[in-house]
């Protein structure tokens, strides 16, 4: 048994460099170019097939995408979301066997206001991304994180998007039928019906939705956002807040019917029933960051690196960085670490509270849409006192956003 004072005297094994054969594990013919997992070496061609197949399998496993359905892709410009975008293009292309059949749109959130970038840097990043989006021919929306501070009050009503009911099969079908204009063509010419849907969408977009950048922001908006982040003390909380605001903004866009999508595809975040009708799927979850980086490099997938809140941060700067550093280091010596964590996490399920139409919608946190503990009592008062102590930053925001932020503070405690 392990004891504190036990001497090992060199009995510990050092990590053995995996002895991989030079031939691909799949085709056994071509020279290997990449090792993934704990010793599986692939050649270039087999790796590409494996990568593409995994994406399709992930979407197929969910069985929630109906033909012609509108799917919103959340793209940050980073490697995972850029890879996701290219996989969607690959899947929708005419050459693909078992072609994917849905109508994609792209959303990009400019977070430069929160991460301290200058307007010039932000414009440059947006311009680079716009050229990537234009090359896809999909409709795209570029929004600024500042917009989350000027949410209309109707959107601030928690759960207003949802009737509280999870989508049923029949309501999905009805939504799809509504989308595809010539239903009778659907069975005869499925490709035609998707094209009809796409041209219908493009007509809509010219009249109603401006493709491209939504309303411009003012320096005051950016200042308000900076004050919000400055009022959050720790880097961990800042990253968490950023993540939540990003998510909230995507959902807001959906609620405003600016782009009516049934599904959100993103490379981070998780899928759960809090947001009512919209289904969130993370098809890139199955990939290791090494696989994504290698694929992007080998197959020239354009991605734009945009420095964020956590760039150049030390390992111990935040819980997120510490966790990443811990797992990455462990992975170096024990290559099964990430896949084990991932498989274990798949066994966890979110608790889904019983859907109750009488649920008080106002009792939910505006940001994370979880139930507030309204029985906080005295501690609740402590929180609001602390919030006011945090600064003028909170009080100089408009009434709605102050309400918004205070609720967040309450929830943290």
């Amino acid at each position, binding site marked *: 048994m392990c004891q504190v004072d036990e001497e090992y005297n060199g009995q510990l094994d050092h990590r053995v*460099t995996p002895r991989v054969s030079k031939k691909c594990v799949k085709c056994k013919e071509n020279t290997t170019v990449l090792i993934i997992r704990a010793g599986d070496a692939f050649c270039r061609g087999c790796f590409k097939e494996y990568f593409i197949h995994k994406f399709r399998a992930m979407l197929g496993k969910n069985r929630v995408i109906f033909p012609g359905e509108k799917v919103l892709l959340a793209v940050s*410009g980073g490697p995972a979301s850029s890879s996701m975008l290219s996989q969607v293009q690959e899947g929708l292309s005419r050459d693909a066997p078992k072609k994917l059949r849905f109508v994609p749109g792209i959303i990009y959130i400019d977070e430069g206001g929160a991460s301290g970038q200058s307007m010039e840097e932000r414009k440059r990043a947006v311009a680079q991304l716009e050229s990537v989006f234009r090359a896809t021919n999909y409709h795209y929306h570029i929004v600024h994180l500042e917009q989350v501070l000027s949410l209309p009050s109707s959107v601030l009503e928690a759960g207003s998007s949802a009737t509280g009911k999870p989508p049923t099969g029949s309501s999905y079908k009805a939504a799809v039928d509504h989308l595809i204009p010539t239903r009778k063509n659907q069975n005869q010419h499925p490709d035609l019906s998707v094209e009809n849907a796409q041209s219908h969408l493009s007509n809509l977009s010219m009249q109603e939705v401006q493709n491209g950048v939504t309303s411009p922001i003012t320096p005051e908006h950016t200042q308000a956002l900076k004050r919000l982040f400055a009022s959050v003390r720790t880097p961990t909380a800042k990253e968490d807040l950023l993540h939540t605001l990003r998510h909230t903004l995507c959902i807001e866009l959906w609620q405003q019917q600016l782009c009516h999508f049934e599904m959100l595809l993103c*490379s981070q975040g998780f899928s759960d029933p809090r947001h009512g009708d919209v289904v969130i799927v993370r098809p890139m979850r199955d990939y290791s*960051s*090494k696989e994504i*980086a290698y694929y992007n490099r*080998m197959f020239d997938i354009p991605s734009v690196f945009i420095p964020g809140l956590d760039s150049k941060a030390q390992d111990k700067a935040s819980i997120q960085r510490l966790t990443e550093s811990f797992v990455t280091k462990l992975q170096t010596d024990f290559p099964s670490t990430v896949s084990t964590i991932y498989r274990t996490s798949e066994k966890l399920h979110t608790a889904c509270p019983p859907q109750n139409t009488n649920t008080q919608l106002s009792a939910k946190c505006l940001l994370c849409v979880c139930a507030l503990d309204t029985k906080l009592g005295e501690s609740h008062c402590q929180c609001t006192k602390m919030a006011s102590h945090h600064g003028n930053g909170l009080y100089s925001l408009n009434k709605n956003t102050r309400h918004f932020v205070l609720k967040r503070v309450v929830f943290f405690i």
Partner: protein
Amino acid sequence: MVSLLSLYLGGGAELLFGSVKEHHVTLPNQSEPWDMKQLLVWIRGNMLKERPELFVQGDTVRPGILVLINDADWELMGELEYELQDKDNVVFISTLHGG
């Protein structure tokens, strides 16, 4: 002898090198062949502009940085022991916090 190497930095690693992604370097002559371990030391001393601990840790690269030599995973080439050849292409891609 190694005279010319092309280096590429991606995924944010370029931030540590003055935001320049592509570099062409000529390594100084020496009697023994250059290997990756020596290259890292050389990069640390001659090219890194800031925060070396975000790129190199100990003898090797920081965990989370993918290294490719001539478009192949360096784990297949011997990692630090790989002996560099003239006109080799070495790529460092940071896979940390990748969105």
